[in-house]
């Protein structure tokens, strides 16, 4: 898994961010002593740097210039200073993204994934599989055996999220949260409608009861 280096002077955020990223499966390293940050970065050799702008001693911008002299490691600035000129400057100095505090956690994770994907040049797998079901993301179809069916964008995202968490019970609220990340802004009722349609489409290709409802808890594949 990629290694993420956290450069942040607030101890609570440093610690919590570390835990969050580790729970997401990343390896982490944190800078707690701000005397020789470029040296520590070289030592840790991270795949991505999350950096606060307002650091003790020297600010993140000049640090960024220093880091850029030695490496191309992507840098995401995370800061509570949200002026447009800061953002422009940070990006022109070699930052890869700029996120303002307080951030929504799903948004932060999505931006980290996006930067890593962009830098790594690795395309995400185009098909997802769960049991007999194959989901073709770019074509927007689901297939089982010989049969195949077209899905709407909403249905595709719902199924992809469920297939990303196979066997687990996915609470409706988590599912809605994940859909909002993909700019599908639906409510509970619309989710039910979509799930119903999705189920009947899966039935068409011979997979009735593929999505199970766990009453009061959520859905499960």
């Amino acid at each position, binding site marked *: 898994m990629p290694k993420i280096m956290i450069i942040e002077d*607030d101890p*609570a*955020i440093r610690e*919590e*961010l570390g*835990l*969050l990223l580790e*729970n997401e499966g990343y390896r982490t390293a944190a800078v707690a002593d701000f005397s020789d940050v470029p040296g520590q970065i070289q030592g840790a050799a991270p795949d991505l740097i999350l950096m606060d702008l*307002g650091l003790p001693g020297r600010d993140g911008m000049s640090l960024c210039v220093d880091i850029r002299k030695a490496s191309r490691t992507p840098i995401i600035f995370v800061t*509570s*200073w*949200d*002026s*447009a*000129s800061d953002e422009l400057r940070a990006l022109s100095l070699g930052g890869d993204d700029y996120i303002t*505090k*307080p*951030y*929504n*956690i799903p*948004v932060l994770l999505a931006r980290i994934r996006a930067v890593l994907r962009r830098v790594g040049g690795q395309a995400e797998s185009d098909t997802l599989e769960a049991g007999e079901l194959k989901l073709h993301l770019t074509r927007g179809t689901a297939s089982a055996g010989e049969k195949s069916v077209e899905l709407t964008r909403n249905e595709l995202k719902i199924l992809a999220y469920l297939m990303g968490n196979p066997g687990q019970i996915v*609470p409706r*609220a988590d599912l*809605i*949260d994940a859909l*909002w990340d993909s*700019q599908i*802004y*639906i*409510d*509970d*009722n*619309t989710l039910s409608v979509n799930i119903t349609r999705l189920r009947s489409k899966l039935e068409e290709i011979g997979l009735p009861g593929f999505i199970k409802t766990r009453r009061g808890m959520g859905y499960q594949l």
Partner: protein
Amino acid sequence: MRLGEFLSDRLDRLLIQGTCAGTAAFFLWATGTQPGVLVILLLSLLLVFIAFHLTDFFRQRARLQELNAILDGLDQKYLFAECLPPARKLYERRFLGLTRRAGQAMTEAVSDARAAQLEYREYVERWVHEIKTPITAARLICGHLEGDIRRRLTYELGQIEGHVERALFYARAASPERDCVIRPAQLGEIVSRAIGTHRTLLIQSGVRVETEGLDLCVYTDEKWAAFILGQLLQNAARYRGTEPAITISARPLGNQVQLTVADNGIGIPAHELPRVFDRGFTGSNGRVRGGSTGMGLYLCRKLAGFLELGLTISSEEGKGSAVTLTFPAKENLTKL
């Protein structure tokens, strides 16, 4: 200054001069001066008086016009006394001296107030940025919690952020040119930025958001526009009806772009509609539900004014409200 008012202003002098001339003529006549001589004398006196007063009139009028022009040409009118040409007459000199002293006192008071306001603004900005650190930490800590409690706390944190954000923009609105950068922006990005900021509130309010035709470019400050949009989204979520839905749609209108945020909420009574952009106006809905500050739409109008955005609202009680933002055409922007 007209001749009539000038003369009536110096009626006292005219009367004294007339009386003196009359008395002298009577005295000369009584001591045996010939009437012909008297007439010549009086006529020449009259000519001298007329010439004197007329010269005075024209001189004063020219002087006043000059001062008027100076005042009109000044951006900061209170600096008038500093820019005066030297006075020719003792009385005017003294009088302008007093004006200058008064003006200096005013200039000092103004610059003190300016400095205090700037200091306060800077403090608010600093405070806002500082408070964001613990809010961020709290959000991350919330990640350890499960399910409902996490969602409720995240919701409350979102409320805190909303208030903090309004305080920040309120402070910024006092001198917007320092922060506002107008450049081309994708409308879709502004909208998803605003929705992203308020997603917890929207999701928990059970709101469905539909977007339509947002693939347009506008000339604006992305952050400010997203803030305005955010206020509209918060209002739509707060004053929602059953099965709440918000439609955000855009369409080009000549070189302008119209963005409409429409909801199916409880709506605003017609008689309150003209006042919703007033500072501190909460309306009957706000009073019934509580938690309304009357600042959201006021700030929207203020910031929209600076971004040269058109801002209109329509509403029907029980049916919903629609706010339309009209983004100006690039050519019409004065601040680009």
